[in-house]
């Protein structure tokens, strides 16, 4: 039997607290194009990082042409003919295209570069990928599409047998995407195998011949693409239909508290418009990279907006607000708790009251009334069942769930009418999850509005009243509370027909 080019056998990998990959196996032959599909956290990146030598597997084998190989580092992967084009480009911005191409592979003799040969090599590989830019240009002066092409050219210099593309089209124009697909076809005709990671199903149907679908770290299905329909793939991605635990009547006639129109930012978000009504939990769903986090950050001014308006209901009227000021009425619970939410080295008490200090100013300005601050903090500790031994202990000593509760109470104090919560229950224990969900329900019961982002679609579906789905920086669908999981995932894998 002819040995396949690449054979992943029973690859397993776990991280503290989570089994990222369980017994994943598949084969790939020369010249085959395989699409690796899966929802967030399904394990696609983990699997490819193992193949690319970025992380180590716990068990299983990687066979290349029948031989068992060890991938201890990216260098090993390269030597074994595996090339990985990451989603985040590794470019050296101020250096020339030539330097970027050859930085790890300059033709040299005892440390001195053979300039003529270098120029020739660079130009020929650029030609190969269809790029005709001047190699002396600084790479930061070219667009992201061309930069990616150069990165691809760089990996081709090592004559790989397998090229892995991780979400390659996220910043490409249509023309550049077509160019990429032509390039992939070229690779195929040169007997190079391609693994294409994506969640955009229409791309899968344009370019791939085989598919492998991961869900929760397991390979749930694989085979020739022609045996699959779009619906079948989605079903494999999502698994069994889950119960919607919480059915709520759609709240009509409630005032709109937040209105966003035409928001564009950073080349990612394109013309986003949404409305958030009092008393509702609006679920914002989408896959990694769809722009959900970027959207909420742009609304509160953490990222600059290129276009669009934000209106907030102030004193019975919707008024235009500058995003930098929006945090007066909007509480943001950030996804990256450690880097954007917590003041890690500071006590719990400080973390709790930091957004609301003006309320605790004592008799002599600017000094704070410590007693009042303590009292208030203790109230919140009780209300949210935060587990700690002292208000003065450093917040980093609290568990994830309790940290999250502290951040939530930071905003509760200010009593904003709008909450934007980005992954509020990620990485915390089950008990705390339930408590926070109930908290959110309480909030909207008392007249606030919550925009909720979560990658755990089941959690999202258990409390939301309405859904907005994003894909590639655009809103691709709005659904009522009784929408099916399939519909939601379908909308997340589908660009609007523009």
């Amino acid at each position, binding site marked *: 039997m002819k040995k396949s080019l690449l054979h992943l056998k029973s690859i397993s990998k776990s991280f503290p607290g989570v089994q990222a990959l369980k017994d994943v196996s598949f084969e790939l032959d020369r010249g085959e194009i395989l699409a690796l599909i899966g929802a967030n956290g399904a394990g696609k990146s983990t699997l490819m990082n193992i193949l690319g030598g970025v992380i180590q597997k716990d068990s299983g084998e990687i066979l290349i042409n029948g031989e068992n190989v060890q991938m201890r580092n990216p260098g090993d992967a390269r030597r074994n003919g595996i090339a990985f084009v990451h989603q985040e480009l590794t470019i050296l911005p101020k250096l020339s295209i030539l330097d970027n191409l050859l930085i790890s592979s300059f033709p040299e003799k005892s440390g001195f570069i053979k300039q003529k040969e270098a120029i020739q090599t660079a130009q020929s590989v650029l030609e190969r990928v269809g790029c005709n830019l001047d190699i002396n240009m600084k790479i930061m002066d070219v667009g992201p599409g061309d930069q990616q092409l150069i990165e691809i050219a760089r990996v081709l210099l090592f004559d790989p047998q397998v090229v892995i593309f991780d979400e390659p089209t996220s910043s490409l124009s249509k023309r550049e995407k077509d160019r990429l697909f032509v390039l992939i076809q070229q690779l195929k005709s040169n007997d190079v195998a391609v693994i294409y990671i994506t969640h955009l199903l229409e791309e899968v149907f344009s370019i791939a011949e085989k598919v492998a679908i991961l869900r929760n770290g397991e390979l749930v299905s694989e085979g020739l693409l022609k045996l699959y329909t779009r619906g079948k793939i989605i079903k494999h991605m999502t698994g069994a239909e889950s119960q919607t635990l919480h059915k709520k009547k759609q709240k009509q006639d409630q005032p709109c508290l937040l209105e966003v129109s035409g928001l564009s930012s950073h080349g990612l978000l394109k013309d986003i418009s949404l409305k958030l009504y009092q008393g509702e939990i609006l679920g914002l769903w989408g896959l990694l990279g769809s722009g959900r986090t970027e959207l909420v950050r742009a609304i*509160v*001014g*953490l990222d600059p907006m290129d276009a669009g308006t934000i209106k907030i209901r102030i004193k019975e009227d919707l008024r235009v607000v500058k995003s930098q000021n929006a*945090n*007066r009425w909007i509480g*943001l619970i*950030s996804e990256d708790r450690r*880097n*954007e*939410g*917590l*003041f*890690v*080295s*500071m006590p719990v008490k*400080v973390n709790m009251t*930091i*957004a609301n*200090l*003006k309320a*605790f*100013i004592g008799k002599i300005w*600017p*000094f*704070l009334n*410590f007693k009042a601050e303590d009292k208030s903090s203790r109230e919140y500790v009780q209300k949210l069942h935060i587990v700690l*031994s*002292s208000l*003065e*202990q*450093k917040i980093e000593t609290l568990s994830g769930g309790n940290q999250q509760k502290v951040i939530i109470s*930071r905003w509760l104090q*200010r009593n904003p009418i709008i909450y934007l919560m980005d992954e509020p229950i990620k990485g915390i224990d089950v008990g705390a999850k339930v408590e926070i969900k109930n908290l959110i329900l309480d909030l909207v019961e008392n007249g606030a509005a919550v925009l909720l982002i979560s990658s755990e679609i089941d959690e999202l579906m258990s409390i939301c009243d309405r859904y907005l789905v994003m894909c590639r920086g655009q809103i691709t669908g709005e659904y009522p509370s009784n929408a099916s999981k399939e519909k939601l995932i379908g909308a997340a894998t589908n660009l609007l027909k523009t």
Partner: protein
Amino acid sequence: MEITQIKTIMQSLKSNWIRIVPTAIMLLVIILIGLRVPVFLTQRNLINILQQSASIGIMAIGMSFVFFVGGMDLSVASNMGLSGVVGALVMKNGGNPVIAGILMLLVSTFIGSINGLAVAKLNMIPFVVTLSMMYVADGLSVWLTEATSVTGISESFISILTMKIWIIPVPVIIMLFFGFITTMVMKRSFLGRWMYAVGTNIKAARVSCIPIEKVKFSAYLLSGLFAGLAAIITTARLGSASAAIGQSILVLDVASSAVVGGVSFYGGAGSPFGAVIGALLITLISNSMNMLEVSYYVTLIIKGFVIIIFIGLESWIRARNQS
């Protein structure tokens, strides 16, 4: 005290040991020196030390604000020099000493405000901004004085600022007073919390509705202000002003004072009073080296390495905590 309070103090000691140990070592060394050279611990010498530390201590208070928000101010010494020169020139030409003093503060605060604008509003890197300001201020001093000392400081100016209340010189009282007040404000007011927050985690601070630009600007403004205050007492003490009083070595002394006094170079921790204590310790080193007849040069070496060690320790701990 409740058990929880004791626990918290123990915890605080445990995580701060890295700051306490080197300082304790220094104190130990100083005591040992005192035993060896008895004149070291006399009242006269100690008062002397206090006096010498006043200028650095006051600048260190200003510098600590900039450290709190995660920046740095390399221009404090040149700022002090320039402000002193300006005020001295006014007095030399017959101006009122009170006006001169106010002018010193105005000039120094103005310089601080330029730094503040560049860092807070234009988002430039503190190192670049304050380094270039240092060169400009230095150059201005040299130009204005034509590289000579400015004398002719009015008598009243000198006498008020060099007199002693009981046995403690006025500048020292000023230093201790401001050190105390500013520490109270930092620890007990919302302004202080805001500063610590900006230095600890600027993104979280932005999300928490803290006016980051205003906070950073104020820090540099204060640094400038205190440089001016230092100019006043230094000019009075020396009875003259010159471009030389603001040499670059002084900046290192000021930074060392802050760092040794527990103010984190990376931001978010420490207190202005700690910086004052640090200034005392640094001056103690200089003085004790003197007493021991250690050459000025060795003192330079020691000072150079002290700051490297302190910040190195902190870097190391941070790196360890992050992994």
